[in-house]
């Protein structure tokens, strides 16, 4: 059964679509897809903003993403005849984090937090923080209400699902017994000695042993200073999470026709369903098709062999006449491409038979990496013209 085609233009022309999230495992072309969708939407009249995490350098340059000031910049070279516009920004994780601290703590406390070694480690590391900051930035952009469509490219997590876990993880962290114990002194003042039960004593002794007393003290200082902000953090993370569940959001799972990427895509589709996140479809990127599909791989290879035999015949003592080396090589190349396409088709069918209701858009493999607006336009057109 052929999968349902994804109607990209209907999705981006629908004014009720306010957020498009492109997700999928690393290296499948998420960033390019997000940028292409943003550009097409802008040229069809939307006020679009693309939030990207980790673009290729030349693509970033072509979109004017060279200054890292953590605010969306207008992209030049976009056709604005339809009344649309395109902004783009690249997420600066640490800066986003710093800005939250500065916005939500008084100046003294903010300075104290920013200087704390634990804060510095947390805000510049990649594990988890990037996912959370991407959510935070998305929430901010949506809240600013300057754009009617935000296209997000999710971080290249070790698991593409991490960004969905950010609020829960933060919640689990904040509700953890450790945090509560560490922040007891700040909450209860002198009387905190009362809670020094056996478990806590054992834990602090173990922690002191592993980390040393100073580290524990720094951690405690950090948590205490951060304590007042934590509630707000979680509230906003939960707010963004709920925003993602609303009908104004559309998730697009991006995959390449390779076993790992499609396995991840399946997992993602199921997870989005479990979280009640609105899935618009699958973008199957870098699909190999052949213009000359009427010549099968088997026939092509057989023909190449015939030509080989002919050419070998000419190697004899009285060999003369035309050689067909070029044609044989072209036939082999064609056979390989046909076989590749067939393998990809089989892999894609695994996915579509497990998820028959999910609309699919296929993007044929481009001979070269996309790194300018024209290249993005080509991808956008392919995404929107799925009907044969």
């Amino acid at each position: 059964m052929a999968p349902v085609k994804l109607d990209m233009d209907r999705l981006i022309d629908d004014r009720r679509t306010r957020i498009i999230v492109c997700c999928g495992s690393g290296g499948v072309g998420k960033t390019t897809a997000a940028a292409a969708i943003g550009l097409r939407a802008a040229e069809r009249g939307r006020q679009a903003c693309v939030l990207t995490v980790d673009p290729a350098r030349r693509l970033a340059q072509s979109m004017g993403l060279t200054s890292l000031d953590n605010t969306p910049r207008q992209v030049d070279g976009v056709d604005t005849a339809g009344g649309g516009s395109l902004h783009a920004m690249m997420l600066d994780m640490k800066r986003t984090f710093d800005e939250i601290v500065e916005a939500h703590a008084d100046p003294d406390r903010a300075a104290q937090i920013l200087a704390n070694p634990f804060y510095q480690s947390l805000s510049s590391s990649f594990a988890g923080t990037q996912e959370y900051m991407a959510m935070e930035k998305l929430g901010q952009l949506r809240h600013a209400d300057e754009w009617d469509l935000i296209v997000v490219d999710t971080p290249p997590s070790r698991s593409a699902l991490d960004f969905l876990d950010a609020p829960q993880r933060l919640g689990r962290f904040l509700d953890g017994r450790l945090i509560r114990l560490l922040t007891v002194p700040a909450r209860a003042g002198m009387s905190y000695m009362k809670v020094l039960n056996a478990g806590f004593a054992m834990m602090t002794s173990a922690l002191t042993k592993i980390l040393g007393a100073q580290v524990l003290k720094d951690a405690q200082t950090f948590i205490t200073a951060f304590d007042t902000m934590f509630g707000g953090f979680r509230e906003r993370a939960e707010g963004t999470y709920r925003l993602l569940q609303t009908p104004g959001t559309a998730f697009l799972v991006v995959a390449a026709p390779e076993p790992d990427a499609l396995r991840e895509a399946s997992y993602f589709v199921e997870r989005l369903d479990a979280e009640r996140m609105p899935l618009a479809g699958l973008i199957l990127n870098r699909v190999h098709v052949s213009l000359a599909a009427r010549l099968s791989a088997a026939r092509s290879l057989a023909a190449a062999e015939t030509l080989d035999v002919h050419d070998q015949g000419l190697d004899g003592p009285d060999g003369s006449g035309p050689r067909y080396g070029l044609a044989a090589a072209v036939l082999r190349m064609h056979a390989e491409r046909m076989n590749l396409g067939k393998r990809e088709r089989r892999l894609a069918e695994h996915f579509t038979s497990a998820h028959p209701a999910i609309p699919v858009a296929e993007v044929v493999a481009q001979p070269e990496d996309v790194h300018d607006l024209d290249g993005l336009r080509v991808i956008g057109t392919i995404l929107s013209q799925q009907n044969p």
Partner: protein
Amino acid sequence: MTTRDTDWDGVRLHVVTGKGGTGKTTVSAALALALARAGRRVLLIEVEGRQGIARLFDCPPLPYEERKVALGLGASGGEGGDVYALAVDPEGALLDYLEMFYNMRRAGRTLTRMGVVDFATTIAPGLADVLVTGKATEATRRRVDGRSSGHLYHAVVMDAPPTGRIGRFLDVSTEVSGLAKVGPIKTHADTVAKVIRSPQTVVHFVTTLEEMPVQETLDGIAELRELTEGTIRPGGIIINMARPAMLDAADLAAAASGTLDVAELVVGLKAAGISDNHGLAADLMTELSEHAQQVAQQNRERDEVLTAGLPHYELPMIPDGIDLAGLYRLAAELREQGAA
């Protein structure tokens, strides 16, 4: 000693990094197979909790325990050594660390229950990293029996975090000293750093011949050199999933510039009994010119990544997906090219 030197004789900890999607886990596994010559034991370590090794070797999910998963690649038909695998997670590494150094396994369980591991990985990933790298360096240094005997593992291969994170991941002592100037975890980090910064350790970069992975590889090598002032040694560049050129260079150049003679192809097709109906030859020509562009891009990216000036190896695309046979094929390539 082996009959011939490899590029990494004397290296005992091979750290393998690469951008997501470049086949870092596959290459790590192939390298482990290639290193496990007859009579040698090699440990393959996975640190990102994805159970990619178990999937590759078609075995049940790996616990926090060193398990034999395969026989190494033998020489000329003979059997190879043993490949062991271990999936390290920060929590298991913490329990391990407490038991090994403080004999405090029970306290470790309490810490886990109290959410200390979550805490550490959330607010101070540097601490989790030092526990994980600590496990790898411990395995690297481990002796068969007592101080003077030989190393238990001839080599350890670590399927490490992606290129974007590798500098910080390995620069454990700097990461930890930001948090702890003194104390046991600092001492531990320093011991770990000593192994990582010794000539026993190198970091290999896996890339495909595409723009992003190549860019990240060069950035990663530069970052590693800068962060650690050259004390953590970049190893080789392993180009993965290279697609072979199907025509010779002259024909490819002609195809790319559109100067190849369609008539010659039509004659060839006819000689093979294929008629040029509906412009078949022209369509094949378009396909060929795309192939030529792709080969040209690969060549450009190869030139680019080799500007790093590191030894390099090239592994072909295994068309039907990686299975055990494919892994051994890649291992043989790596050994053939001198990587192991």
